[in-house]
């Protein structure tokens, strides 16, 4: 795993009145234990991976002794289904995943769960990467809450408030029989702060206090005719109960202000941004006091009509600050104002940007427009310098997109694919989610579609029979076990698809932080598991299967060539197997340091470029893109252009040399293997060689 969470695990055990210091996601995790959860699960993805990572590390020391079950769910659907335990039994449970993509995968189970209803509190912590990170579609989780009647929290980002909302969410879930969702923005998950803890609560039902009898109640099955009754319950009992709970517990907050004519209704998560914008416009103080009245919605579904109406009634104009589309809150407020004849003008997407992340400049501009006059003057002063730097820079700065790490075993596969396409002609490449999606960026620019996690091969199904050449699909081991096994491989074999599948097996679900997956050899709880992609694929009926060491680019190239040209029909699977280099370095580095210290013989390979042999055509970089393969001065008084250089971060994987070889580029690359603490015999040999070579060099 990417990090060790030993310090965080210690904090999870803190008791009443003690102070926790850490990230937002840690406060949430601690609050789960304070709420007496019986079970926790989920699928990793930014920004909530750390919840699972911390839980995995805490399993043995903390969770298991409390009887809390930790599930490393195979995918989000499995995680959502895990919450099924709360339908019949008084068990609190929490799962986590990245939204909106993870929620899509979970949707089937979620619909069933929400229809049946829960008696134990069920909580889903979703990481909203809206606007920020990678592999996420710009959609709102809010739509799921509306269609399935889920309780949706968007808490004001402050550690104590996050923890409180977790505890309230469990209680509200039980009061309304509806599953609750807490949505965390990426900066909230990673913000550092403090909270005052409470004691952890051992669950009433769990691994140490087991259930004795099954509960059978057809009314709790999401199956007709129960579903008809359940639909009625949602709107007649459950949502009204939730509204009562929100009002009684005062989950939403009001900052009063002194302007009677205007007000702002906002998602709790946007509170700091809004307060800062107000402060910059001279309308708020640094301590959260605002001149404009604010209604801060910690719960954005359901809304409480009476509460909202009481806030907006009597005002002339109200601004809704609501991130993402469609503008559900704004629409509901407008409908409410119309129904109740409140006569207030409601602004929202007419003043704030329709789409995209609500960064300060967006909110700032909207509030300035909403308030007009002096506020607009303040904004103009703040942004007087805008655009000047761009004028001086004249051209956009070169982008720095994410890329494969130095020594990554996935990069060579794409080098080989690029060389193969140069030889055999370009073909359609169905990309997938994972680190390997970086191949869609420079210098590879490879990948024609991305259809979701594990969907690469499936997305090639109609292109394959319609394409002149064999198409290539990419799948990581994470994606394979998540859904590629069924939607991809089984589907392709069943339909006798004639195409090539490259599986990048690096042993971890790497993009989210090297979490264990079935290819790792053990699960996150540390138990040994033996699951093999090669065996699985074979058992599904794939007969053309090759396993390659990706660092041997020549061999990989030959295998790809063979797969692309063989007369054999059906699915051809190439497994490129080598350990994630980040994880490997984390393991190997301390070992090498210890060996060097102990005076043990250590070979340290690293690559280099002869600057006088390199002519600076940079072909190597167009086939490679390794961060350690960069530019240097030629040192040549007659040549101005930079040449290739391997910097000190090189881990000696050998790809640059292999690529220069396989693509027949140039003779500039060499491997320099420094042998530390050589044996006496090696020393003698080296001395003799040095003598003889020195004599020839002098000749």
């Amino acid at each position: 795993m990417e990090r060790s969470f030993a310090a965080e695990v210690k904090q999870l055990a803190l008791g009443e009145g003690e102070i926790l210091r850490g990230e937002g996601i840690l406060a949430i995790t601690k609050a789960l234990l304070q709420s007496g959860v019986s079970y926790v699960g989920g699928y990793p993805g930014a920004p909530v991976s750390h919840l699972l990572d911390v839980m995995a590390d805490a399993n043995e020391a903390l969770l298991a002794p409390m009887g809390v079950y930790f599930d490393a769910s195979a995918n989000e659907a499995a995680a959502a289904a895990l919450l099924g335990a709360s339908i019949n039994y008084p068990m609190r449970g929490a799962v986590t995943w990245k939204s909106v993509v993870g929620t899509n995968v979970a949707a089937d189970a979620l619909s069933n769960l929400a229809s049946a209803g829960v008696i134990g509190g069920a909580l889903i912590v979703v990481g909203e990467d809206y606007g920020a990170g990678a592999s996420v579609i710009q959609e709102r989780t809010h739509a799921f809450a509306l269609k399935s009647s889920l309780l949706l929290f968007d808490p004001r980002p402050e550690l104590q408030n996050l923890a409180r909302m977790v505890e309230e969410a469990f209680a509200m879930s039980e009061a309304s029989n509806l599953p609750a969702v807490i949505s965390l923005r990426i900066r909230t998950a990673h913000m550092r702060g403090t909270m005052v803890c409470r004691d952890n609560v051992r669950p009433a039902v769990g691994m140490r206090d087991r259930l004795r009898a099954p509960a059978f109640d057809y009314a709790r099955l999401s199956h007709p005719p129960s579903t008809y009754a359940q639909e009625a319950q949602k709107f007649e009992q459950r949502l009204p109960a939730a509204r009562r709970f929100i009002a009684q517990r005062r989950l939403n907050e009001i900052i009063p202000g002194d302007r009677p004519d205007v007000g702002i209704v906002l998602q709790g998560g946007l509170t700091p941004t809004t307060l800062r914008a107000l402060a910059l416009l001279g309308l708020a103080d640094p301590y959260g006091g605002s001149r404009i009245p604010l209604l801060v919605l910690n719960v954005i579904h359901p809304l409480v009509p009476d509460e909202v109406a009481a806030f907006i009634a009597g005002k002339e104009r109200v601004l809704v600050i609501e991130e993402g589309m469609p503008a559900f809150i704004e629409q509901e407020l407008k409908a409410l104002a119309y129904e109740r004849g409140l006569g207030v003008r409601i602004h929202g997407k007419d003043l704030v940007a329709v789409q995209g992340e609500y960064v300060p400049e967006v909110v700032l501009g909207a509030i300035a427009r909403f308030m007009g006059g002096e506020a607009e003057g303040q904004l103009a002063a703040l942004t007087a310098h805008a655009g000047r730097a761009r004028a001086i820079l004249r051209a956009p700065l070169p982008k720095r997109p994410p890329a494969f790490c130095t020594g990554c075993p996935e990069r060579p596969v794409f080098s080989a694919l690029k060389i193969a396409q140069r030889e055999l002609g370009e073909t359609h490449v169905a990309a997938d989610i994972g680190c390997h999606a970086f191949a869609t960026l420079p210098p590879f620019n490879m990948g024609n579609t991305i259809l979701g996690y594990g969907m690469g091969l499936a997305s090639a199904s109609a292109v394959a029979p319609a394409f002149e050449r064999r198409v290539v699909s990419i799948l990581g081991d994470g994606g394979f076990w998540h859904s590629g096994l069924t939607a991809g491989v089984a589907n392709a074999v069943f339909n006798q698809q004639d195409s090539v599948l490259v599986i990048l097996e690096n042993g971890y679900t790497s993009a989210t932080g090297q979490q264990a997956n079935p290819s790792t050899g053990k699960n996150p709880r540390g138990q040994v598991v033996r699951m093999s992609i090669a065996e699985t694929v074979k058992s599904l009926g794939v007969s053309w299967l090759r396993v390659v060491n990706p660092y041997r680019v020549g061999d990989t190239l030959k295998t790809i060539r063979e797969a692309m040209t063989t007369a054999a029909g059906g699915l051809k699977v190439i497994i490129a197997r080598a350990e994630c280099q980040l994880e490997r370095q984390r393991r190997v580095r301390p070992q090498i340091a210890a060996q060097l210290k102990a005076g043990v013989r250590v070979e340290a390979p690293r690559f280099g470029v002869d600057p006088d042999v390199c002519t600076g055509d940079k072909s190597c970089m167009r086939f490679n893109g390794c961060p350690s393969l960069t530019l240097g001065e030629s040192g040549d008084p007659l040549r101005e252009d930079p040449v290739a250089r391997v910097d000190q971060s090189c881990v000696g994987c050998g790809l640059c040399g292999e690529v220069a070889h396989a693509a027949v580029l140039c003779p500039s690359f060499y491997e320099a293997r420094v042998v530390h603490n050589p044996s006496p015999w090696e020393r003698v040999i080296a001395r003799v060689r040095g003598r003889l070579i020195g004599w020839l060099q002098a000749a």
Partner: protein
Amino acid sequence: MLTDWIVAAAEHAGLAAQATSIPGVAQRTGATTYYLEVHPVASGGPGAPRPVFSLYPTPGDVDVIIASEFLEAGRTLELDYASPERTTLVASTHRLFAIGERTVLGDGVFPDARLREAARALTRRTVAFDALAVARAAGSEVNAVLLGAFAATGAVPIPDSAYEAAIRDGVAAERNLAGFKAGRETVAVGTSLDPSPPAARPWPERRAERVAALGRRGGTFLDLCTAAEAGLDPAVHATVGEALARLIDYQDRRYAERCLALVRDVAALGGGPRLTERFARRLAVWATYEDAIRVADLKTRRARFERIRTEQGAPPGATLVVTDYLKPDLDEIYGILPAVIARPIARWAERRWPEGRPTIGQHVRTTTVTGFLRVWLLARLRVLRPRSLRAEREWALIERWRAAVRAAAALDTDLAVEIVETATIVRGYGEVRRRLAATFVRLLDEIAAPAIDRDRAAGGDYARSRALVAEARRLVLTDENGIEAAVALAARPA
């Protein structure tokens, strides 16, 4: 790390602070942005109102920007975060090149001067220096050096003792304290946004070095140099001298004399020293094309092994094994042979394998005696070079170029300089070089020649031709398939 230190230091100083970041995928070699806020008023104790911190920076509302790389410093400026009234920029000037800068055939590096200019215009104060170099010298890390520089600016009211306490709370405290101190001192001594001009050492001094480096052939070089300088403008002495040193090192006196005659020929065209200087420079690089003999020669030099030892930081007592990745194709091998023998072989091979010739891949351990000997013996074949097929072909191309330069010089000196510069297109090995050579020929035939004809017919100056040739060269050196775009551009009516 840097963020954690500042937050901890603020806490040591009794100030409230909050930080957040966007790691995740951005960790995989992308740039990660951290944002933190420190409330400048000491906390009033429990129960006192707590400041509400923002999770995002607002453009124009940023007091300090710390950038551990210079392009990223520029990016914060590009996004309007810095304002001239308010912002202090603490930046390391070293560069980690972005992928788009690295894959350009020629020089794709974003101009440093523009980054400096933007920093000067958009900040209240900029502290910019090579923090990587300072860190290495201090045996420390860039982050620690930048923390020291940040502390030295005094932009945030936190005393040094608080930073030092924060560092002591963490790992590798001594190393980091050393970096912190080095950063502080660098700022105390003073930094400048003006890049230090490269120390251009006088030519006579460098000439003496070349003499020494050429060993036994140093005398020949000095003779030839003195003779050359007599007839040429002093402005071109250094370049012509470097060219002669390179040519003698590559082949011999006769070869250098042959090239010198060509330089004199261009000098006599009356285009002035700039044309002569550029021509001499490009000719010398081209005439020392990297054939297998040259590569073998460079790979077996003593200085090379010394350089590798230093670069790899091999401590005394450690042994070094160097493996060279060599893969000449058939062209490069028969290219060494005398043209009379190689011509029929080449004809046959090019018919047999029109697309890409077979290659002979080998991993040679140049630090072993047998491995070294194999490469060293190849380098001894230098005597074959003047009559080789490769020489015949390279020189045919050089002559085409020279003819184009002479023709252009008769019309317009600046145009001739542009033609001279097209020589930089021809580079690389094997297939890459053949493709680029073909590109070069197309540039001369399909872009330069028609453009010059058109300008001549129009009777005006040659501004359009100059611009077209320069733009074509830029396109070709930016993108491997740039020649198509260049030809299309040239075909457009003026």
